């Protein structure tokens, strides 16, 4: 079969296409960076997950250690059950704390793991019992306004904001006080 220049050009064309796909995969996409190898699954219950989405990163000390695989609603406890795929290279103690954080003020939400001090590590299928819900901005603002109103009603000087809503209990009043002062 004799070769023609057309064959050469088509060969170059298709090779260019593959090169571009490879370039997209390596340079543009996260095929290289997000390749988490073997993972184990743990779950965590949250009362409110805010805007957390499946495939959101799971970070510990700012390093991505896994991804959110699934979020379902538990109709018995009325809580969100979040399944996390964590890289088998990383082991966390059984009393690890799972928080939902927001990257930046308006950024995407992710799960932050804070290691505890337990001797036993989390295994596949375990449940993280200590969790903290997502910060809902509206609740934060309404609480702030409420505390401001009580402050001016009562006497100035009484600064401790009384948190009335259950979802923001965990926040305490520390960030609010800063804004208030």
């Amino acid at each position, binding site marked *: 079969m004799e070769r023609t220049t057309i064959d050469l050009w088509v060969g170059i064309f298709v090779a260019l296409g593959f090169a571009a*796909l490879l*370039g997209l995969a390596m340079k*543009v*996409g996260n095929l290289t960076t997000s390749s988490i190898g073997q993972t184990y699954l743990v779950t965590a219950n949250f009362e409110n997950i805010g805007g957390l989405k499946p495939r959101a990163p799971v970070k510990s000390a700012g390093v991505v250690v896994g991804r959110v695989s699934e979020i379902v609603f538990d109709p018995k406890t009325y809580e969100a059950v979040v399944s996390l795929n964590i890289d088998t290279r990383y082991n966390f103690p059984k009393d690890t704390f799972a928080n939902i954080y927001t990257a930046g003020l308006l950024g995407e939400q992710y799960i932050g793991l804070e290691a505890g001090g337990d001797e036993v590590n989390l295994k596949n299928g375990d449940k993280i019992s200590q969790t903290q819900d997502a910060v809902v901005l509206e609740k934060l603002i309404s609480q702030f306004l409420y505390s401001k109103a009580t402050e001016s009603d009562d006497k100035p000087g009484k600064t401790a904001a009384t948190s009335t809503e259950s979802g923001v209990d965990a926040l305490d009043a520390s960030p609010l006080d800063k804004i208030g002062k």
Partner: protein
Amino acid sequence: MVLHKLKRMLSKLGAGCINKIWRLGAGGRLFWLTLISSGESFRRFRLTIREVYFTGVLSLIIILVSAFFVGMVLALQGYHTLQKYGSSEAIGVLVALALVRELGPVVTALLFAGRAGTAITAEIGLMKATEQLSAMEMMAVSPIARVIAPRFWAGVIAMPVLATLFSMVGILGGYLVAVPLIGVDAGAFWSQMQANVDWEYDILNGVFKSVVFGVACTMIALFEGYDAPPTAEGVSRATTRTVVTSSLAVLGLDFILTSFMIAV
């Protein structure tokens, strides 16, 4: 008098609709015939390669140049808005996602319909007008297997390659504007892009879109050519219809595909 006019208008509308549906059916039949007689275009792969050269390689210049400009414009426009919110580093994500998910496949398909689709229609229409297709049939050579199928597969092969190249070159164009010209940090440009562009969800879906567009554009061009009245005017009208129909089909299909891919 008015009633008569209305009646004529209605019957014209009905005839137009029936004609469209008839053409849709004929197009579907041609698609099926192409698929079942495409064995030869793989056995004699040289035929297909020749068509890849004409539809793909010769479209490279227009695709790459427009990709470059589209990427540069995206970076300029995106920067203008993003810097108002103090997140100009997100320019890389914006350019990459816009190109990989939408503009790459869609603009490539539109250009492909204009550059290669018209050529296919005119070529086949002229082959029909000069009775080359009938001559093939006389010699017991199926014109669908010999002429239509290789062009179809060439379009299906060329389109994803062109769309991928479009995305890549567009991102390079965006990089050139964002980093050396505007002064966005190069590290942030690439790292934000890598953190937010997903291989399967964004890139492979974009490639899948371009394959579907390739099938649609090529098939419309082939059908219009095969169906063209064998006159100079008929071929010219068929060529115009190719561009109009493929553009509309691409944009409509894009909406359908996107709504499937972005499963809410």
